[in-house]
């Protein structure tokens, strides 16, 4: 009991989100433990992305609670900026800052938030860029990179904050097919290093290979969750069966 308690990173309790009258998330409950790699799968419009974005309050939930190390993020008195430093996020469209070099993109937050000096951040940027195979691009601008390279930089930028958990929101959906592999490889390596991750993805093979838990979202809730092998080879609910038959 006590061992699992300290391992819990995120707790989602009765999470509810509606845009005006349109309900997107309806009473979602789950727990994310340290080292979990969770693949989130489901048809479009089912609330996967909204769920992910509710975890760091980019979308304010309309009900329920999200606890990070026991701190309720929906509490208005919590300094959400400090929590976000610990939750890295990678977006479908990369969202690099076009007016800054790659190095400046990576160093901006650590330096502005006074977590590192300029020199430390710059050194860290070099390390991270080496890790994602883009060391020679440090002083170019985002516009000169390919989509795959941009997404690798975005991952490095999120890692620069030394996050405890990483959220990936369809990281390969905006990429040309030949660039998907290079990004997935980086994420795989990250998973192997023990990083806790939640990944919204449409890459089923990747989900099966890299995750330890798979979640199926439909109609604003987790309708099925299982270990990847079971999830893909022995789906229970008719919705998941139907979905897998279409995408596999």
């Amino acid at each position, binding site marked *: 009991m006590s061992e699992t308690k300290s391992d819990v990173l995120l707790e989602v309790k009765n999470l509810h989100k509606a845009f005006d009258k349109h309900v997107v998330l309806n009473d979602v409950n789950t727990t994310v433990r340290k080292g979990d790699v969770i693949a989130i799968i489901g048809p479009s419009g089912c609330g996967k992305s909204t769920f992910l974005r509710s975890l760091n309050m980019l979308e304010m939930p309309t009900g329920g609670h999200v606890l990070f190390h026991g701190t309720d993020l929906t509490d208005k008195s919590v300094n959400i*900026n400090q929590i976000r430093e610990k*939750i890295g*996020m990678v977006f479908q*469209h990369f969202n690099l*800052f*076009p*007016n800054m070099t790659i190095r400046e993109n990576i160093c901006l*937050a650590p330096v502005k938030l006074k977590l590192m000096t300029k020199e430390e951040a710059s050194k860290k940027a070099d390390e991270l860029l080496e890790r994602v195979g883009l060391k020679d691009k440090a002083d170019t601008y985002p*516009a000169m990179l390919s989509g795959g390279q941009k997404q690798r930089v975005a991952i490095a930028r*999120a890692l620069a904050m030394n996050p405890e958990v990483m959220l990936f929101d369809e990281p390969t959906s905006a990429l040309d097919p030949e660039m998907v592999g290079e990004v997935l490889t980086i994420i795989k390596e990250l998973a192997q290093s023990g990083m806790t991750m939640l990944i919204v993805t449409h890459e089923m093979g990747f989900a099966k290979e890299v995750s330890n838990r798979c979640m199926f979202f439909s109609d604003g809730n987790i309708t099925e969750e299982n270990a990847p092998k079971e999830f893909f080879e022995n789906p229970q609910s008719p919705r998941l069966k139907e979905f897998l038959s279409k995408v596999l």
Partner: protein
Amino acid sequence: MQRTKQNHAWRVFRLLLIFFCIGLSLQFTSCGKKQAENTVFSVDDLSGKKIGVQLGTTGDTLVSDYETDGSNTTVERFNKGNDAIQALKQGKIDAVVIDAQPAQSFVAANSDLMILPEEFANEDYAIAIAKGNSSLTSSINDALNTLKANGTLDAILNNYIGENIGQTPYTSPENVNRSNGTLVMATNAYFQPYEYYENGTIVGIDVDVATAICDTLGMTLKVEDMEFDSIITAVSSGKADVGIAGMTVTPERQKNIDFSDSYTTSQQVIVVRNNDAVSGGTSLSEKFKTDFLTDNRYQFILTGLKNTLIIAACAALIGIVIGFLVAVVRSSHDKTGNLKILNAICTVYLTIIRGTPSMVQLLIIYYIIFGSMNISKLLVAILAFGINSGAYVAEIFRSGIMSIDNGQFEAARSLGLTYRQTMLSVILPQAFKNVLPALANEFIVLLKETSISGYIGLTDLTRGGDIIRSITYDAFLPLLGVAFIYLVLVVILSALVKKLERRLRSNERN
């Protein structure tokens, strides 16, 4: 790179040259044109014609009766007598009804004009004083009586009108004790010989009379030049103590202000084109000399240019500050829903400023908001244009902020940056780059819009040219010269912005 730069400069220069040449050729074609036929020979002929007057003068009041009598008479009201005279010369109107003395000056300077022997009306000139200020009225009346009795008034009049012009100039007696304060005199210095510019200062009968009154009352005189139709407002709002501008006593005016005793009488006369006169054209170099070199008249342009640049630069700064603050308030409200009250204030500000003409705003700020305060006109103009420009800059900035993809905002926030840090280091730098062309356009508009500063009597570039025009009766060179200077300023400004834009763009090649 060097080569293209040179080419660009040369292109612009060539463009300016072409512009100037077009102007010159226009002038020469107009020289060759024959003067329009005169059609007015007596007071009775005025009916059904186009009559020019100076706005708010007695001539205006008297001629206005023709407008409503069904005879199809058009009255064109000009801000200055000079403008009316120029319109008459160009055949745009048929006659000008104006005071006799300025009419004589006009005709003396323009051989192709003449005064009809039949006068239009007689009138008394008096000094306008704020209603109810009876102590000032009576002391001025006392002073006038003294000056009439000792012959000073006659001497002043004879110095400007009649056979012995320049023989009896008025000079203040020595050792006058000026302990009784300052007398601010509102006038419109385009009314020779009553008030006009000579070597950069305002002189004339009215100025001498006012000086003599001040000498008698122990006061210091301060002359303020403004539009004629603003004088009564200035006096009744307290911006000026007296209005002395060849002003006739009329019942309409007496409703708003009090008048002193009359200090002279004058006639309203009719000025028409004189077709018999041989119109000897003056050469361009001759014109250039009289327009700019004689009496150092280019000084009017230089002073005006200096004021225009000061107003435009300071107003642009104020505009950027106001615009930036308003844009941040408005877009923060749009994004987060906070700052409701501030946002409401900003919306009201934008609606009012963008919903009314800048000229009206300028006049309101000068005559109403700072109505009873003695404040520098330059400061008023800077404030008015700054506040005005702020509204446009705010919307430009806001559109720039809104044009930045929301993903940029989310990426920065997801890294733990605060709203403020996100705005300052991610959103605004990109927004600024996006709005630079629109911002440059706004400052070009602002620079040119300062040309209405003349309405509060400030000598800006446009008015500098107008003053020369009023002295030399030549519209061509002063107007074209002023236009040319504005054009050069705008071209320089555009080039600077282009350079800045290119430097900012070099960051990202997309």
